[in-house]
Every structure is written in C-alpha cells, then in structure tokens.
C-alpha cells in the first residue's frame, strides 16, 4: 500500500535516541512571539506509535480488500481509511499542542466518516454522530486546556512546553484561573480531551456504538490507534501531568474505573463486536491508570502503559479482524447465532485463540508482559486499590474473552445454516491475521527491554525495581482461573435465549448510561434549553419587533380616526394644538 514508504521511513528513524525535530512548515502565528508551525516531533513514543499505526494500517488495508469486496463503494472507503491514517500520523508526530489538536480533530472527522460509512443504515449514522459529538465535547475542554497552558507558558511547542524549567515556572508562578491552579486546571482540561477520545467512563458511550462501522474500521480505529490517542496525549504531556498530582489522581481513578466497569459489562454482552469494544475500553482503562500511577521518579507505569499500548494494538486488531471474518461468514453480529465454527474457520480459530490467550495474559504471549508491568507499577507506586482492580480485571478479561471464544467456536451452530454453506475464509483476510499473530506472540519478548529502557521523556527517571515475585504469579493465576471458569460454563452450548434479569440486566444494559445520556440531551438540553430558547426567539424577541409594527398600525388607526373629515373637529384640533404650542413655547417656563 501507499504506506509502505512511510513504514520504511519510520523504521529507519526509530533507533534514534531522543528527539528528532525534522521538517517544519510555518503555519500561522498566534500573537507576536508565538509562531505556530506544523512539523514532526519524533521521540520514542511517537516512533512507537508510528510503527504500530503503519503496520496495522497496512495490514488492515490488505484485509479490507477482502472485506469490502462486495461493498458498493470501495472507492470511498480506501481514501477515507488513508485519510484516517494520515491524521493519526499527524497526531502522533505533532510538534505542538495546536498541531496535535488539529490532527486530533481530523481523526475525529475521519472516524465520523468511517463509522457512518454505511450511511443508509440509521444506526450507523446515529453512532457516527454520537461518536463525533461526545469526542467534540471533550475536545472543547482540550482546546480550553491548550489555550490556558499556552497562555501561561507562552508556548505551544512540546519542546518548550515540557522543559522542566517551563513546568517549574508554571508551578511556582501560582497563576490562577477563576480561582483554580492553572497547572492543575490546564492539565485536567487537556486530559479531558484524552478522556473523550480514549472513551473513559462516562464518556465511553460512543465506542460500543461505533462498532456500527465496517469491521476493518473498528479494528484500526476503535482498537489499535485512535482510541489510544488519549493515552498518547497523556503520555506526551506526562512531565507536566506528573507535576499536577490532582490530575494524575483523576487519570488513575478514571482508568481504573473504566477498566473494571467495561470488563464487567463485557461479560454479559452478546454482540461480537461490542464484546471486543468493551474489552478495548477495559484495556484502555489499564493503560490509563498505569499512567496515573507513574510519577517523575518512578516511571514504570509510564513505560508499562506504552508497552501495553504497543502489545494491545496487535492482538486487539487481530481479534477484530477475526471477528470481521466471522461476521462475514455468518452474516450476524450476535454470538447467540454462532457456535461450533472451529471446523468451518480453521485459520480464524487458531489466530483467535492466540489473541485471546494474549489478551487474557497467559504467560509467554505479549499481553502477559505488558499487563504484568502495569500491575507491578501499581503495586510499587503504592496504589494498592488500583492494583487490586487491575488484578480483578485480569480475571474478568480472561473470563469474558473465553466466553467469547467458546460461544463462537465451540458447541453447536445456532444460527442460520444457510449462510454457512457459502462461507469461506478469504485469502486477503486471512493473510493479515496470520501476520498479526507474530507480534501478538512475540512483541512482548522482543520489545520489553527497549520499552523499559529508553522510552522515557526527558527529566523522568525510571527509578528502582524490586517487584515482588508473587505479582506475576498472581496475574497468571487470575487469568487461568478466568479461562477455566469460562470454559467450564460455556463448554456446551448454553441457553442464551433467556432474558437477563436483576443485576445482570443492569449490566447487560450497560448500567443504563446511554439512556441517561439520551435523557440529558433530548429531555434536558433539547426540550428544556433549546426549545424554550426557540420559543423566546419566536415570541418574545421577534414578538417585540413585531409588536412595534402592530403598535404603529394601531396608532395609525387613531390618526385616521381623528381625520374624520368634519371641519369643526379640524378647527378644534387646530386650536388645541395652538394652545399646546403656546404652553410649550416657553412662555410660561
């Protein structure tokens, strides 16, 4: 694909040590001293992201050739996909906050267009709107944060912004905005931007719905790349965030809460892509709280988070691609209509198994290494609560992934056999999946050293490591337990038709958060804010303008009434007018 060139370029520059600031393009100046430019800012994490993006996008492009084979408008799909990759590359390579925001928004646009790619499906259209608006909501805060930080630091360039001196000055200046500390408020607002993009709760609602898009889109955007933009942003701004403990606290809480919450929901969902979506959410939560537990002196969380971003991208992409293939085969998204597919889809069976094992954190596969580091980071940082959640989520992850796996591939086929007759595994689709198994398995071994070594931003030290040996053991135990439980429960085709009840129903309906949103937007904002405003506009503001007209019309009638045509009235008016004139004429004042 087109991106092969980009790939080569990125690889060639990846061994560089810290920062390469290559190509610049003066864009527009904001104020006398601040000249904004577009360019590339390459440091380990952006290079890592570039690798992930280009590898995955290339594979997904290949996969799409097979997937979109029957679609009527591939001519629209591939440009949009490439546009997305362009935006994403611009985002991770941004040299300054504004450039990042620009590409951040472009990523939003392309995501909107891709989710709503099947524009004739109302659900897809609604999902695209939802995704765009919710991320836009977060972006408003992001913009606000950018402005605030830029105003007080006098710079938007990361190179200037993240200098220890700048941060120190900002911290010591005790500048306030509306009574809040600028550093805390600014970083928090920037983080809210990432919050929305990375779909942390409660802004997560768009991500499951975004699965309405074509599956290659889900695999590239909503698992591997775009959703980690928020993580990337937080990591990029890490030196500044680390100086704002309150923001870091928020980062940790949000991440942990999302990890747990999404994992719980994932255990009950029936839609193949939604399960993966909630799994993504949960994993994003991992990455986020991992960042939250790091600080300037103990940055293991930071490295671990980046490591997890890296490994997760591969196996999650793989999972999505395999899910896409399965959907292609059975023409349904509901795992209730699947089962027993291991015979029909051999390749898929094996790659999915590998990916599931990887995400479940089974030792030897990539997911284990990165998750392990996260848990160690949480423990070492003294964040025991997060640690417990992390371990628990590890168990849940293993459980729901194998629930997923068992329901799809084992047991009896429960769907419409008619579709299955013609189903086959397209070569275009299998190839990228197979390729992706390689990093899913080996990424952990290969990259571990590098990640823990030089991925750190300037001014951050890795700190000491003395991880207790029982942590990996515990993690392994949790995942084995989860897998075992799931296999046990779903070994045979269970009865899936029953309506979920009680607590399960609550979880199945995602804690009714979507309904809450609908209530807030439709009932409160539309009905109670916008509608009254329109009423005021129609009847009060415009009414006031129209009243003037009516007033003058009725006064005109009065004038006409006096003009009766009777001469004595004319004389009378004349005389009265005369008297008034004399009185007003100043004679008596």
């Amino acid at each position, binding site marked *: 694909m087109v991106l092969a060139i980009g790939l080569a370029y990125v690889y060639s520059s990846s061994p560089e040590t810290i920062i390469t600031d290559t190509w610049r393009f003066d864009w527009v100046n904001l104020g006398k001293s601040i000249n904004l430019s577009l360019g590339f800012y390459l440091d380990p994490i952006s290079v890592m992201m570039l690798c992930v993006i280009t590898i995955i996008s290339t594979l997904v492009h290949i996969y799409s050739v097979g997937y979109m084979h029957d679609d009527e408008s591939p001519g629209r799909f591939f440009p949009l996909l490439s546009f997305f990759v362009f935006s994403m590359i611009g985002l991770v390579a941004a040299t300054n906050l504004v450039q990042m925001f*620009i590409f951040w928004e472009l990523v939003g646009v392309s995501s909107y267009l891709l989710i709503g790619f099947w524009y004739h499906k109302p659900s897809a*259209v609604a999902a695209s709107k939802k995704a765009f608006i919710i991320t836009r*909501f977060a972006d408003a805060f992001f*913009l606000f944060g950018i402005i605030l930080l830029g105003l007080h630091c006098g710079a938007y360039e990361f190179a200037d912004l993240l200098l220890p001196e700048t941060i120190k000055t900002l911290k010591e200046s005790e500048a306030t905005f509306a009574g809040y500390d600028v550093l805390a408020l600014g970083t928090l607002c920037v983080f809210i931007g990432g919050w929305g993009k990375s779909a942390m709760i409660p802004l997560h609602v768009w991500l499951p719905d975004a699965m309405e898009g074509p599956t290659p889109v889900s695999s590239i955007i909503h698992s591997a790349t775009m959703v980690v933009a928020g993580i990337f942003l937080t990591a990029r701004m890490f030196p500044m965030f680390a100086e704002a403990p309150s923001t870091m606290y928020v980062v940790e809480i949000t991440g942990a809460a999302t990890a747990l919450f999404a994992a719980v929901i994932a255990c009950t969902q029936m839609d193949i892509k939604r399960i993966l979506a909630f799994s993504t959410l949960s994993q994003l939560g991992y990455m986020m709280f991992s960042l939250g537990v790091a600080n300037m002196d103990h940055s293991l969380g930071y490295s671990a988070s980046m490591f997890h971003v890296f490994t997760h991208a591969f196996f999650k992409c793989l999972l999505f691609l395999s899910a896409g293939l399965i959907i292609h085969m059975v023409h349904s998204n509901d795992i209730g209509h699947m089962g027993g597919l291991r015979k029909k889809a051999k390749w898929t069976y094996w790659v999915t198994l590998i990916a599931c094992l990887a995400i479940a954190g089974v030792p030897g596969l990539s997911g284990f290494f990165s998750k392990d580091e996260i848990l160690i980071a949480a423990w070492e940082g003294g964040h025991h609560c997060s640690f417990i959640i992390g371990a628990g989520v590890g168990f849940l992850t293993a459980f729901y992934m194998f629930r997923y796996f068992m329901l799809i591939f084992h047991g009896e086929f429960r769907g419409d056999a008619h579709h299955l007759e013609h189903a086959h595994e397209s070569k275009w689709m299998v190839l990228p999946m197979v390729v992706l198994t390689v990093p899913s398995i080996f990424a952990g071994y290969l990259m571990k050293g590098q990640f823990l070594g030089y991925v750190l931003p300037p001014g951050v030290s890795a700190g000491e490591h003395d991880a207790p040996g029982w942590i990996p053991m515990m993690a392994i135990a949790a995942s084995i337990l989860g897998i075992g439980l799931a296999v046990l429960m779903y070994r045979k085709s269970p009865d899936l038709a029953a309506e979920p009840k009680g607590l399960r129903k609550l979880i199945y309906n995602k804690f009714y958060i979507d309904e809450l949103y609908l209530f807030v937007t439709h009932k409160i904002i539309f009905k109670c804010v916008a509608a009254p405003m329109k009423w005021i506009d129609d009847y009060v503001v415009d009414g006031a303008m129209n009243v003037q007209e009516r007033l003058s019309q009725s006064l005109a009638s009065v004038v006409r009434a006096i003009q009766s045509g009777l001469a004595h009235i004319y004389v009378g008016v004349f005389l009265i007018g005369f008297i008034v004139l004399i009185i007003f004429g100043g004679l008596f004042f």
Partner: protein
Amino acid sequence: MAFLLNCTWILPALVAVLLMFVPKDNKPAIRMLSLIGAIVNLGIIAVLTIVFVNDPPALGDNPAATVLAFETKAMWFDKLNIYFHTGVDGFSLLMMLMASIIGLCGILVSWNIEDRCKEFFILLAALLSGTFGCFISFDLFTFFLFNELTLIPTYMLIGIFGSGKKEWAAMKLNLMLFGGSALIILGMAGMYIGSADAMKDRGFDLIAMAANGSIPVEIQMWAFPALFLGFAVLSSVFPFHTWSPAGHAAAPTAISMFLAGVHMKLGGYGCLRVGMYTMPEGAHACMDIFLVFATISVVYGAFIAIRHRDLKFINAYSSISHVGLVVFGFATFSALAIRGAIMQMVSHGFVTAVVFALIGSIYGRTHTRNVDEMGGLMKQIPFLSVAFVLAGFAVVGMPGTSSFVAELTIFVGSFQNPGADGGMNPDPLVLTCAVLCVLTIVTTAVYVLRTVNRVVNGPLTKDYDFGDANKIEKSAIIILLFCIFAMGIFPGWIANLVDGSLGPIMESLNRGAR
C-alpha cells in the same frame, strides 16, 4: 491604481446601467454580461491584492493613522466637509476579495433565474456596487452612503425573487437594517459635531478622527453605543437578529449567500472600522454590554439552530452564532482575537455562502427545505451531498477549514485580553464569555451533525427523479469550498495581511484604554 480601486464599485454600477439597455428577452447576454463584470471585478481585486502584498504601504508618522494604499481623496460636498475618500488596507482588501468571490458565485447560482431575469442581475450588480463602495470608503459619510445603497437592491431582490413570506420578510429585514442605520445616523451626528475639536473643521474622515483622538469623550460615551449598535443590527447580534432568519428564509439563494456572507460582515466591518477605531474611549466604556450580547448570540443562535427544521433557518441561526463570535472577538480588545474575528468574518462569509448555495441547489431538487422530509440524498446526489458534508465540517470548525483557524485565533486571543491590570489576569467577564463560546463548539457540532445526518444520510425517503448538480452549480460550490480549504490550510498570508492593518486600530484602541 487608485482608479482601479474605484473601478471595483464603478464597474458593477456600470454593468447595472448597461444591463438596462439589454433587451429583457436576451437572457444569455444578460447573464454573460453580469458574469464577465463579476470576473473582471474579481480580477481587479486580485491584482490589487497582489500589488498590495508585494508592496505594502509604509507606516506613517502617526501610529494610529491607517496608511491607505491606492488612495483617492477628493472633496465632494465641500460645505459639509464630505470627501470622496477611498483606499484600502489589508483588512478591507480581504473583505473585498471575499465579497467579490461570493458575488461571482452568487451570479453563478442564479444562472437559472428565468422570471424577470434582467431585473435580478441589475439589482445584484447594484448590490455589489454598494458593497464594494462600502469597503473602500474611509469617509464615514460615503461609507454610510454606500451602506444604505445596498438596502434598496436587497429589498427588491428579496421582495421580487424570494419565496414564502417574501414581502413581509423583505420589509422586516429592511426596516430593521434601516433602524440600525437610524442609530448610525445618531452616532454619526455626534461624531460630526464632535470631530470639530481636533480636526480643523468638522468632517467625517475616519482616519483623521482616529489618529488624533479628536472626538470628545463625553460624545463618545453615547455616540459609540449608538453607532456600534447600529452596525450590530447589521451583523444580527442578539436581540436584533430577527431580520436575518426571516430574510434568509425568504431570499433567493444568491441573496441569502450575499446577505449572510457579505452583508452581515459589513456590520462587523463597521463595528471595528468606524466604531472602535474612531471612538476607543467609548468602546472601552461600553464594551462589556456588547460582549455579553455577543456571547448570548453565540450560544443562543447555536441552541436555536438545534430546534429548527428548515435548512435556511438552521443556517441563519448558525450565522447568528458565528457572527456573534466576530463581535465577541472585537469586544475582547485583544489584538489576536480581533485578528481572529476578522478571519472569522472572511471564513464565515465563504462557509455560509457555500451552505446557502447548497441549500439552494438541494431545494431546487427536493422542493422542500424541511430536514425531516429529506434523507439519503448521498445516494441520489453524491456531489451535492459530499459538498454538504464538507461544508458541514467547515461550519463545525474542523481543522483544514478556514473556520478552524479563525475560531482558534479568537479563542486563544480572547484569553489574552489586556484585562483590567493589563497583565496575566484577564477580565473575568471576558473569560466567562470565552469559556461559553468555546463550549458552543459542541452545540455547533450537534446541530450540524443532526442536519447532515438527516439530509444526506439514512435511507432514501422517496424516489426522486432528479440528477446531481450541473456544471455551473458545481463550479460555484467548488470555488467556495476551495476558498474555505485554501484559507484553512494556508492561513498564514491572510493573517499577515490582517496584522498589517490592525496596527493602527490597536494603537487607537490602546490609547482609549489609557
């Protein structure tokens, strides 16, 4: 060169006169003549811009005096000290460039007007003439004259060629605009009397008034609000915006484009050039109120746009919201925000023009403007639909479009406002308003996406039998979209053009703050 500049308003007037002699059945000739006129005009302005950018006028001795390029100054009405004083700085040149492009596209989208075609193009040419005259006038009286000159064609164009409640809307629009003019007259009267103090004689020379700070403060205190309010009516600031939805809804496509794209900007132009530039003390004293009203416009327009179902109403309220942002930018007194506001004027000009052009084209096919009755047009008319989506992104302010640059600049600038102590602690009122404006980008996204989704996406609601845009429509839309994206991707030179002319205005405003 000075003559060439005056040609920008003489030429359309000449076209209008020439058109009167073309037989009214010779429609191709009428159209071609107007089109050629508009193209030549655009060419003239482009040439002037190139000359200006390559050789900008040097700064004068007085930092608050705008140095004009291509200046003409001739005594006109001697006894009242009315000069015919025209010239341009970067700001007005930019506005003219925008106006001429929108005018050209307006002619293109009106290509199919059959009924009373001749009158339409005569009036359109007259409208263009008045607009250009306004942008190049540096004598308040001639400025006002040209401004009023635009009223007659607007009224006639809406009244004759409009749709729906056109007569009522045309009347309402004109009366409200003339009401604004009444306030401008009041302010002008005060300025005229007040200008005697420092200038040798009374007069209307904007630059002289600003350069010497010649209008007494006590006159400014009431003349400024009157004048500014008058122009604010023109730029449809809450609560004087009601002419705009009614007018846009009734107006023919080209006039909606021109009204929202150029005419409303005339208000913003006047606010800055006439109001704030010449009466900085008054501006500083009264701006809080205008700031609040501008912010209300921004928020209010966006929320009401959510509720409307008629495409033209939606865009009209969207325009109110976006033009409110212009006044908001002015009201912060930050050089950067004012620059952003100017860019927003240009940007919104293009954006709203293309949206209205698209609405016109879509309406010409579906014969409805109600979004609930549309759907799935992407399948039927892909070109228009894709353009609609792109235009929608431009309204939302996506990066790559001009509105992103403009809005970003306004927002960044509004936080850099000088504030009470001139230091790092900006005025809390400005900040509150700024935060509200920043948050409105979400509301904007809501109404734009609702609209786009309903019109373009979803299943086809019925079987339509119309085709996609024809070549002429396409060219108009492509020109406008090109401008939007060109400005969004390469905003640098526009920013420089504006900055060059903002110096004197900021100088005057800063003097007013002291």
